[in-house]
């Protein structure tokens, strides 16, 4: 059972554009939602994370929007740069139950930002 669904699979934007990546989850026990950025040959690195008691979080050019009732969250990258070209993963984690401790990841989005 896929508990976190991510879309799109790939995304191409021009420099300065605002790519948006969407995720939807099923498990209402999830209470922590991080986004990871992965460059080729590297492990994923935490980019930004949000808790379900807030609807938006910004860190630099990266913003997470969270809709608890719809069980959806999204990543927006403002003023995107070629250096943002990477694979992005959303994830979710719960404080208890069967999903305690471990991250459940979306399928990933390959982002390409053209100069």
């Amino acid at each position, binding site marked *: 059972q896929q508990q976190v669904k991510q879309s799109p699979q790939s995304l191409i934007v021009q420099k300065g554009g605002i790519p948006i990546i969407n995720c939807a989850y099923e498990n209402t026990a999830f209470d922590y939602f991080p986004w990871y950025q992965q460059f080729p040959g590297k*492990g994923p690195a935490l980019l930004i994370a949000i808790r379900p008691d807030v609807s938006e979080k910004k860190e630099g050019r990266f913003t997470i929007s969270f809709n608890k009732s719809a069980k959806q969250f999204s990543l927006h990258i403002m003023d995107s740069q070629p250096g943002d070209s990477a694979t992005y993963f959303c994830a979710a984690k719960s404080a208890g139950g069967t999903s305690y401790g471990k991250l*459940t990841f979306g399928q990933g989005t390959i982002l390409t930002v053209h100069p």
Partner: protein
Amino acid sequence: GAGVSQSPSNKVTEKGKDVELRCDPISGHTALYWYRQSLGQGLEFLIYFQGNSAPDKSGLPSDRFSAERTGGSVSTLTIQRTQQEDSAVYLCASSFRTGGRDEQFFGPGTRLTVL
């Protein structure tokens, strides 16, 4: 000191052979995780260790997979009688604790190819 390290970085083996993958977590981190990343897929949880507690093995795909963590530090993931479908990148991560929103820091991964 440094981040999570994994060895080898690449491993090519023949079908039916056993392989061992090693992970050195960040010093002081009590939680250690193994994930698998197949081509075009997200990260799939395999197993995690938290301190001296029994590991959560719920993600191991078959009894050919096992892992141990010695002395609360280094971990080894063993795959017996490897199959071609085991080909993937195996990622290790560590965090200060398992619960809460403690960030999981990932290593660069071991790319396993089963011929």
